[in-house]
């Protein structure tokens, strides 16, 4: 089985290279037979990589510990879902997964019924096949998932117990699929440049970009949730390079989705859009590279890694090649129109784009700084989370504020009168929030500014919906509910976008609350003793101990009360896995919309004296709720159809 899997990879590599060359040559010579052959090669590559994935799955499920990969990442007691997740838990497995996803997406793109931009397909599939070939080269020459060892151990080393969490089943594939989906818009962008057809490619890739954006968003959110419930340090985002690697392409994809609207409507920002989609793709590859090459621990580990140089070469070719191509096509990429006024929806979009890209570069700089300083000054200078917070928070607040300003501003130009009329209500709401918070005794100005911006944007969105609903109700004589429903359904991408904005607001609410107002307290208690934190009283009831076939578990039970009223029983645990030395902390969380009480079992002594670390994190659950809203809005915008195709009312009629 293993030999077949490995051989399928080699064959897939040959076939992908053939397909890439054949479709490029076929497109150049207008040779339909060669193109058909290239298409078959693409289908064959998908089949071969799938075969390879299937045989790795077979090895995993049949506990064939003669295979090094199976030995390193699984054990006999691992349950079925985690055996599947072992497919992407390790380095080479995840690369195989990458290649498999590229081939699947390429397959979908190829067999999709396409009315427009058919002539872009050969070049686009050629680009996708080159990307696929790159990953196959890594799998064939550098790190094979099918390597075998001569001695067959009776059991494997097992999956790292921290990865045994439902979040970890979904997080890596979502993030990886998001990375890979960015290949499709990138491929079409390059094809459009090569074919000199620079007008129609955007609508074709909008949904792929949105798909990638959605997956990256989901992946990052699940990752944050996993860190919160599983890593046991009380937070959800640490600006770790691995997290940043997932966030950066998401930010650029966000910018692209917005600026693509500008090009579609008014033919502006063509070079900018091309650059964004190239950047998003490069960041996706770069993210894959960051997390595997060991480059972040030191330049020296990078020198020892065998995979790093491959990535550097691929990234270099991609960057130089695509920006060189943009330069050669610069005449064709001229804007058709210019922005008419500084006060218009266009300029808020543009500004928002700049801020998103600036935030991405700031994060990139911060992530790479230890490396840059090591190369330039021969000393590693690390930046801690405060750098990212200080740069990121103002930028993200500004971006959110702009999303509110943009909602109530018309395309092209806005008259001062209508602006004043539109903004007065949200502005007053923001002012009221500031006053109420100040009166309530809040003095953390970051939070005050944050909350007032959030309420401004919330009101702006709701106000826009209200007016849209009203106008529709007047015109169609519907009731409020069906008018609202009709409004949303008539332009799903637009209102899906607004729902996404609402989701972002909720996430921002949670982030602001939990980062400004979190309280942490450590206490060492004997059974029966109490500790207080904010308005809560925690009583330690005692330690417990039990065993399962694979783990030994120590539990600490506590009673949570507030104002003399018992609220809930909490159990914080620490367990030791049979095959893994490292302990795993299971935190106890009591979550309410207002705040989470988060208890970490830190340590204990023989006489049951136990140390806890307790946090009160306000508003955290809004992050997860906002994430769900964001996904809902994204899906609404992603669902096929829903864009108005009929032109509206004549001007004379509208005036009546």
């Amino acid at each position, binding site marked *: 089985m293993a030999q077949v899997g490995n051989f399928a990879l080699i064959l897939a590599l040959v076939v992908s290279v053939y397909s890439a060359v054949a479709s490029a040559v076929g497109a150049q010579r207008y040779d339909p037979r060669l193109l058909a052959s290239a298409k078959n090669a693409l289908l064959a590559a998908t089949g071969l990589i799938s075969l390879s994935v299937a045989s790795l799955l077979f090895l995993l499920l049949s506990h064939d510990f003669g295979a090094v990969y199976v030995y390193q990442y699984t054990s006999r007691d691992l349950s079925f879902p985690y055996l599947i997740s072992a497919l992407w838990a390790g380095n080479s497995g995840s690369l195989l997964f990458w290649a498999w996803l590229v081939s699947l997406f390429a397959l979908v793109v190829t067999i999709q019924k396409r009315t427009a931009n058919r002539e872009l397909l050969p070049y686009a599939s050629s680009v996708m096949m080159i990307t696929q070939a790159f990953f196959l080269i890594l799998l064939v020459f550098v790190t094979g998932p099918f390597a075998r060892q001569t001695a067959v151990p009776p059991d494997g080393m097992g999956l790292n117990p921290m990865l045994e969490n439902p979040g970890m089943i979904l997080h890596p594939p979502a993030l990886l699929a998001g990375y890979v989906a960015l290949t499709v818009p990138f491929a079409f962008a390059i094809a459009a440049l090569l074919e000199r057809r620079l007008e129609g490619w955007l609508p074709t890739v909008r949904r792929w970009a949105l798909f990638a954006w959605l997956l990256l968003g989901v992946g990052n959110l699940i*990752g944050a949730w996993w860190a919160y419930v599983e*890593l046991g340090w009380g937070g959800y985002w640490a600006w770790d390079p*691995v997290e940043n690697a997932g966030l950066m392409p998401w930010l650029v994809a966000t910018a692209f989705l917005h600026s693509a609207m500008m090009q579609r409507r008014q033919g502006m920002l063509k070079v900018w859009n091309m650059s964004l989609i190239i950047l998003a793709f490069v960041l996706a590859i770069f993210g894959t590279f960051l997390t595997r090459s060991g480059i972040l621990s030191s330049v020296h580990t990078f020198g020892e890694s065998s995979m790093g140089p491959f990535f550097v070469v691929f990234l270099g070719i991609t960057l130089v090649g695509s920006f060189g191509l943009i330069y050669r096509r610069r005449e064709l990429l001229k804007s058709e129109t210019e922005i008419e006024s*500084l006060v218009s929806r266009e300029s808020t979009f543009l500004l928002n784009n700049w801020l998103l890209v*600036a935030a991405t570069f700031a994060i990139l700089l911060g992530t790479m700084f230890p490396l840059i300083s090591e190369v330039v000054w021969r000393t590693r*200078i690390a930046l801690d989370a405060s*750098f990212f917070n*200080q*740069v990121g928070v103002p930028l993200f607040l500004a971006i959110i504020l702009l999303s509110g300003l943009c909602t109530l501003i018309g395309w092209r130009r806005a008259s001062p009168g209508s602006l004043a009329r539109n903004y007065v209500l949200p502005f007053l709401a923001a002012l009221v929030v500031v006053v109420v918070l100040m009166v309530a005794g809040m003095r953390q100005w970051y939070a005050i500014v944050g909350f007032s911006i959030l309420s401004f944007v919330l009101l702006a969105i709701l106000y826009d919906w209200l007016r849209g609903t009203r106008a529709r109700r007047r015109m169609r004589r519907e009731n409020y509910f069906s008018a609202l429903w009709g409004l949303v359904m008539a332009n799903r991408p637009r209102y899906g976008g607004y729902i996404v904005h609402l989701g972002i607001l909720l996430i921002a609410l949670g982030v602001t609350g939990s980062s400004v107002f979190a309280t942490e307290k450590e206490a060492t208690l004997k059974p029966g003793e109490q500790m207080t934190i904010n308005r809560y009283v925690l009583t330690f009831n005692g330690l417990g101990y039990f065993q399962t076939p694979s783990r030994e578990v120590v539990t600490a039970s506590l009673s949570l009360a507030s104002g003399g009223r018992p609220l809930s029983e909490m159990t914080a645990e620490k367990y030791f896995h049979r095959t893994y030395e490292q302990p795993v902390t299971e935190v106890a969380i009591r979550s309410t919309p207002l705040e989470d009480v988060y208890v970490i079992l830190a340590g204990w002594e023989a006489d049951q004296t136990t140390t806890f670390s307790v946090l009160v994190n306000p508003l955290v659950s809004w992050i997860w709720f906002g994430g769900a809203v964001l996904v809902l809005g994204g899906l609404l915008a992603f669902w096929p159809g829903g864009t108005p195709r009929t032109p509206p009312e004549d001007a004379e009629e509208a005036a009546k």
Partner: protein
Amino acid sequence: MKKRKFLIAGIVLFAAIGFLAVMAFRGAAMYSYTVSELLEKGDAVLGQTVKASGEVAPGSVSYEPDNILKFVITEGGNQLPVVYQGVVPDTFVESNEVTVEGQLDTSGIFQARTIMPKCASKYEPE
């Protein structure tokens, strides 16, 4: 004319972001050494908050009362004793790589404020 307006807006914006980054940099920058580099610097780093990274020496970890953790990190044949008080992250295991943040005291012991073991979700580099 309009172009110039946008140009000015862009320049102002990027200047502001640059300023923000520089300000943030001052508070956040910290020298990061391996154990051998840190010991090489010797007295020069006394009292400075720095990062040091190496491998947790097998058999050196001892948990003591009051939540105090003592261990030794090694790198390139050099050793650095570390003292830390607080919650120990799960991923802190012997032989795993760890980065500690804190100060070296005059007796040659590293007083760690935080310990950051290598994250479990990362892939092993090859």
